[in-house]
């Protein structure tokens, strides 16, 4: 086969691959939006699930549940991971910093279902109940390595001369880090936070054995709670048409939330650079 032909075939394959990937993304997005949009009604947002077999009802508890689980997880994980990230940047030469950094790398490679199994053993089993709290703990474990790593990178990107300028004004070290450096790194750090939120909002596996799901409202964070991805999963594999329909509606909401978070975070990254 002559060289020019090989070249053409190769280029054809490249363009084909790009088209396939683009098509898949556009198809999935489009299909979810289409099926979801036609399945959504007001009930979806304000009603609780109906008993098995009955048509109608909504997913309000799952939507609120997701926000609450992610919200509480954020409360735990965001301050903790930002501080850890700052530590890793400020004291990057210390041996302990290297240990922590490696641990976070490892933690970020753990499949999310294992996180769920872990938190089950750690929290659910001793407490003898599934709970919203356990779900939040599981999600925060997923968030921590992501945010810490991004924070470290972003703080590292702040030029040393900024830190020198701050110190030369006689400002205490911790104030320079907190008020000046972190401030400068803010858009980047925020990006990390948004990306991790986008990630955990859609996570199902870690919630399977922690917050477990609930057809009703949870009465406190110590009760099992419904979450959007969980509900989508349960409804999708069920044999009831109406539930399947609602699964699409749930997917519609979920994909919109996730996409918005991703797009906003991309904007922020560009602004930061």
């Amino acid at each position: 086969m002559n060289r020019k032909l090989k070249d053409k075939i190769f280029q054809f394959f490249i363009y084909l691959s790009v088209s396939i990937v683009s098509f898949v993304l556009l198809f999935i997005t489009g299909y979810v939006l289409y099926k979801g949009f036609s399945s959504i009604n007001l009930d979806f947002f304000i009603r609780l699930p109906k008993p098995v077999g009955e048509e109608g009802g909504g997913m309000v508890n799952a939507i609120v549940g997701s926000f609450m689980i992610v919200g509480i997880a954020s409360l735990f994980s965001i301050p903790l991971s930002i501080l850890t990230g700052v530590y890793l940047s400020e004291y990057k030469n210390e041996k302990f910093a290297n240990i922590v950094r490696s641990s976070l790398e490892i933690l970020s490679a753990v499949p999310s279902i294992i996180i769920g199994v872990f938190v089950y053993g750690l929290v659910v089993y001793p407490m003898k109940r599934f709970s919203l709290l356990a779900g939040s703990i599981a999600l925060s474990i997923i968030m921590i390595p992501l945010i810490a790593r991004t924070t470290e990178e972003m703080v590292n990107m702040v030029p040393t001369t900024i830190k020198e300028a701050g110190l030369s004004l006689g400002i205490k070290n911790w104030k320079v880090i907190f008020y000046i450096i972190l401030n400068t790194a803010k858009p980047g750090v925020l990006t990390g936070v948004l990306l991790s939120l986008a990630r955990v909002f859609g996570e199902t596996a870690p919630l399977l054995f922690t917050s477990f799901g609930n057809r009703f409202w949870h009465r406190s964070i110590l009760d099992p709670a419904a979450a959007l991805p969980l509900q989508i999963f349960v409804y999708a594999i069920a044999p009831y048409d109406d539930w399947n329909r609602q699964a699409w509606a749930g997917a519609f909401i979920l994909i919109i939330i996730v996409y918005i978070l991703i797009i906003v975070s991309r904007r922020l990254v560009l602004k930061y650079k």
Partner: protein
Amino acid sequence: MTNKDYSNKIFKFILKISAIISFSILVLLFVVLLKHSYLAIKTFKLKFFIDTTWDPVFEKFGALPFVYGTLLTSFLALIISAPISISVALFLSEFANRRLKEFLGVIISLLAAIPSVIYGLVGIFVLAPLMREYIGPGIQKIFGFLPFFQGSVYGLDYFTASIVLSIMITPTITSISTELFDAVPKSLREASLALGATKWEMIKISVLKTAKVGIIAALLLGLGRAIGETMAVTMVIGNVPNISLYLFSSGATLASVIANEFTEATGDLYLSSLYYIGLVLLLVTLALNLPSKILIKYLVKTK
């Protein structure tokens, strides 16, 4: 004057505590997994992974069907995804202009961000029926002589799961490969072009060859990702603790069996066996992920 000592010291202390907490989570993870899988490890030891019977009723637990399912679907996904992912990465680093690169970058991040459960949803209601009605029979018409394409097409089977997985791991492989290709110095490309190479030849000689090691790492990372993937697989693989050569039959994976049976596991040995599966899943994933990540970091840094 002593003020300064304290506030800086307190700050460093808080930072250190945060770091310690982050580190402890990992330690705890291993402790909990080991503790709960101990019973199964003691009972079955390594035979666990050769036994094919998974029978909760008679408390016989053999994980081979799941190992088989995981390996089969993950490798198949890798085979499907690799050429496509690498091609897209080549497009991004060798062909695309700034705007296209940005645009495709968005597409890839969105693809990576789609929650697993949504992939599963589309898998169940779009891909599986398509498989069952058209694609499966179509493939059987042409390749039906091959043993793995025989048998009835269930739709919720190894093949569908592999395809879904291949889509899910593509963003990972693509983004790392793009970084690796971008790291190849321009002069290397110019050298081969100056010798009269076609674009494909240039890429083959200067880019692919140089980035070869990194690409393998990227593929291993993709493989690791596929192995740990749970929800989408659970939704389209059929969840039957089967071992079958027929790609169109249902099966199960290490991750999917945990997802399916964990909350219903009665009995200590049952639960412990699932923990055991989880432990092994974790170790395999880490074994694939970590060396690859280190390798890639090293390769991209020494640009």
